[in-house]
């Protein structure tokens, strides 16, 4: 292997506002693409629902995260936890923006019961990967049984919160689609 080879991109992290803007724009784009095969009203509803889901779930899970981190042996600062959350949301926004094209494709070509199932799977996988990434960032400096327990507990809580938000939004969107 050539020693001059640079395996990864080492760019400085974007500011928090830019990361949040990316998350907002990416998730909105994904939502709009998801509703492309339906009515304009449904498209708008999806475009609003996706940012509400991802950013709302993050907002719901952030206070317990700060609490869990504070109880860990060597807690990072709250500011760094918030920054890590914002950066993770920014990356999630990039991923969702990329997934907008397949979402639009499936929205237009698939009108069966598998379509919402596929959408839910995509949303859950994207959210799960983001959750794992954030957890690794925040709890990585304190590898102990206590911090592992706190991380697991917070992950479970975040998943439950996210799924609850998803179900609530799903109910609302099914009304729009009818």
């Amino acid at each position, binding site marked *: 292997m050539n020693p001059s080879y640079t395996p990864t991109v080492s760019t400085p992290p974007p500011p928090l506002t830019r990361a949040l803007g990316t998350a907002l724009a990416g998730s909105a784009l994904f939502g709009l693409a998801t509703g492309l095969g339906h009515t304009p009203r449904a498209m708008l509803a999806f475009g609003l629902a996706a940012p509400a889901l991802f950013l709302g779930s993050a907002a719901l899970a952030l206070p317990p995260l700060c609490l869990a981190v504070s109880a860990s042996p060597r807690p990072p600062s709250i500011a760094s936890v918030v920054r890590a959350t914002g950066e993770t949301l920014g990356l999630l926004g990039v991923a969702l923006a990329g997934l907008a094209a397949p979402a639009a494709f499936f929205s237009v070509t698939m009108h*069966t019961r598998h379509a919402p199932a596929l959408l839910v799977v995509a949303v859950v996988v994207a959210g799960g990967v983001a959750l794992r990434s954030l957890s690794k960032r925040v709890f990585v400096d304190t590898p102990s049984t206590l911090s592992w327990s706190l991380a697991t507990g917070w992950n479970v809580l975040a998943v439950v919160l996210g799924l609850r938000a998803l179900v609530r939004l799903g109910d609302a969107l099914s009304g729009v689609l009818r």
Partner: protein
Amino acid sequence: MSAALTALASEGLSVAPRVTAAQPPSPRVDPPGRPHADLQAPAEALDGALDATPRVTPSDAPRVTPNYTPSDAPSDTPSDAPSDGLEGAPDDAVPSALTWVEQLLRAPGAALGALVDSPEGASPATLRTLVLTVALGAGLFGGVLGAARGPLQSLAAGVKLPVVLLVTLMVCVAPFVALARIAGTRLTAASTVSLVLGASARLALVLAGLAPVLWLVASEVRYHSIIVTAVAACAVAGAAALRFLFQGLERVKAPLRVGLAWVLLFSLVGAQSGWCLRPFVVRPRTASPPIVRALEGDFFEAISGSARAAVGRYDARSALTPR
């Protein structure tokens, strides 16, 4: 599975010529009578490459491997050598395309060097060659696939199969770039497009190579044998493309999960786009086969229906019948 994929990806990397940022690109001229390989590679790696992939090279014509061609190319570059296709000269179109075909099939490491080592990816001329390779290779296979039902279906399938591949690529490129970006790899959008297009071109080439086998089966046996042969050919071609793809990802030190996510997404989108443009092989009982069926059901519904039918559970109401 991941171990097998890693082994596949690592295999052949020792013989792959590489161009790094620290080494300015230079034209490579292989001596006559010698297979083209990286002149900077260690001798033992070169020997391994020669053992692994025996190649036939005209003894009287030096060759230029498909790689960078800087503007300050030395004057000792043979003027009559086949071009690498990156210079864009119209006269070199045929040789460069053939060189690319040869590289993709025989020395994927060398092809990967030209596709992913530069942040700019492949040149526009190379991209055109790859798209053309996809269109012709998949078109040939599709034409043979539909030939059992006459020239019209053959023509339709020959057009539809490349469209399926290219539409799938177009839909998947943005998520591929996004996934590579968030995974922290050094793949740029251009090199991602180049890599995926290269893998697709290899898939199409293998499909084209297996098209005569399919033709042989289609001319002698019935519908289900055509299906089985086509699936087997697609599996072989898919394996060749996957190997190329994972070699490329290994080359840029991308995590294995990026490749797996790409493959999963490509499979889903490809299955659905193929479903939208069906039929490719028409059932014999269909009296007047359509060129494209109505947008009914989806690929997953068809698979689950077939799985139920395989165990003897038929649902007459939801059964998808050809129209």
